[in-house]
């Protein structure tokens, strides 16, 4: 083979090698693109959290409570009074409190002085810490109570004022535009679901003080609920 012919053959081999490689790579990419076109990407979509403890039963009760308390439906009246809470929960006070058992790490008990709705420094700090630790939760519960001293009506009103004080503090501190859709108020007075001694182990604003049922129930129980309804 003379030099000129060898030169031409080599040139053709080089051209063919490069050309075929590049064309096969690009055509393969085009085929793959055609196959994936129109298919939804396999990426998770951002959503509120839905923890394992959010059983179907719990969600039904939560929805009932939230709807009746004017939270989900967006009704004009806000909050659940003791009798309403008892009716919508359709359960005993003990069972109602048991609903919150999985929230031990998420909840806090803001304690008040006797016959007072004033939020002290420790309660304020604990409240802000708890509220800011929202994570993916959708609803924030404020369940206020009163100890049995005094009349039932007075304690109902007192627990109502305690709940409102907490809500107003959160509203002022965090300026959350969704606050009316996410904070559920329940004021139970002394009539329903009083906290028992075991809640002394939970996060409280007055950890150094004595903890009896009277002290425990002069309180607002607050917690984010990590359930999607």
């Amino acid at each position, binding site marked *: 083979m003379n030099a000129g012919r*060898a030169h031409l053959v*080599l040139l053709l081999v*080089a051209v063919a090698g490069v050309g075929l490689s590049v*064309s096969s*790579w690009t055509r393969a990419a085009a085929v793959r*693109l055609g196959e994936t076109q129109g298919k939804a990407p396999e*990426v998770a979509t951002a*959503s*509120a*959290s839905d923890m394992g403890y959010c059983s179907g039963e719990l969600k039904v009760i939560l929805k009932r409570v939230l709807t009746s308390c004017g939270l989900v439906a967006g009704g004009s009246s806000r909050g659940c009074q003791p009798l309403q809470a008892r009716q919508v929960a359709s359960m005993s006070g003990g069972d109602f409190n048991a609903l919150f058992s999985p929230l031990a790490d998420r909840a806090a008990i803001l304690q008040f002085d006797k016959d007072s709705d004033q939020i002290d420094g420790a309660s304020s700090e604990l409240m802000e810490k708890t509220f800011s630790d929202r994570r993916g939760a959708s609803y924030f519960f404020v369940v206020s109570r009163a100890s049995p001293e005094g009349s039932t009506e007075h304690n109902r009103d007192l627990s109502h004022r305690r709940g409102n004080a907490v809500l107003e503090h959160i509203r002022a501190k965090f300026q959350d535009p969704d606050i009316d859709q996410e904070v559920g108020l329940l004021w139970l007075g002394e009539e329903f679901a009083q906290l028992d001694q075991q809640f002394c182990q939970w996060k409280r604003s007055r950890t150094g003080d004595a903890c009896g049922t009277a002290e425990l129930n002069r309180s607002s129980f607050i917690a984010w609920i990590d359930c999607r309804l």
Partner: protein
Amino acid sequence: MSQTDYGQHEVGATSPRKTLILLAVFALAGVIFAGVSSYDFIAHLDRQVHAITCSIVPGIGPKDISGESGCHTVLMSPYSSVLRDLTWGGIPIALPALGVFAFLLFRAVDLLLRKRMTRAETGFMVAATALPVLTSIVYGIVSATQIGTFCKVCVGIYASSLGVFVAAIAAHILTSPPKEKSKSGILGQWGFYFVEGLAMVALPVLFYLTFKPAYTDSLLHTSGLRHPEDKYGVMLDMHGKGQVPAVEVLDPLCPACKGFSERLAASGLGEQLQIKVVLFPLDKECNWMVSESLHAGACAVSEAVLCAGDRASKVLAWAFANQDDLRARGGGGQSAVYARIKQEFPDLASCLGQPAVRARVNKGLRWIVANSLPVLTPQLFVRNQKLPDEDTDLGLDYVLSRVLAQGAGEVRR
């Protein structure tokens, strides 16, 4: 073309043959490295994520599937291709490199198969091999100064370039000078080789442009934000030069976000945008949507960006520049990241970790939930139209320029 016209010489004792073999070996290595690099680039034309080769010995060692190698960084950098706004992904630099090395290999083998060669031929080889050397020098400087990392495959190309150049010089020196010189003949011969070389470089580019997947406008039909309003006050206004409203969702410790930011800046298209940033840290410390922290420490850094107020862009730029260090610290817990931030920005110490700023980070995540965005970063919305996630890297220039043109009523066909 006759070789006898302008002084050819028999290969004697000082034969350049061995150096030509060496040149052919280096050229073959260049073909392999440039081929691997081209293949990896072209694979991404399907708009998907692919593992890429990142080894000084291609085929040996695992491919990079995490996207954390220097090869991935270089591939996704604005310097891996040219003419990005004219065709999706642009034309990869490795493609003409493949043509150049294939041409050098062809020339070396062609000379080896002959019994005689001229200094004109070896002189042309010196000139031809100078091109990849010069390109390698430029890209080596770009890697060191602009990209901040080197890719092993690219280093292979640099070494091959140097190898062919040195071998060509040696071959030229070892080739006896002609007894008679014919300048016009030499120029004609060089011109012929130059055309051959040009064809070898143009051919892969032509094949690439001919067979590459077409980008249809239907790919641009993506949903926008359901709730673009900033009712939580979580958007950070940081790039205020342009007029076109845009929202960028990013994680300050996400390498892809850093790369995206660099590509956007390099494209020049970012200057047309009035970008507002929403932070989406993919760190389980504050983000319930990830079971494992993809970018540990991102929650603490997000707090710092929010705490910085008007200096948010400065803190974000610092976080981008120190991503590796911050992520490594984040793996050991938030406190190590806080300590590093406080060291760099002491005035942020009183704000970091406080309920108010944590609530702001959370509000940003809630804004993302409200808009049902995919759990990934970065994401860019221009005039409330989402730039497809697959087009935020190699296709950014091309697709963003189309989106901007569409908005201006000047759709380029």
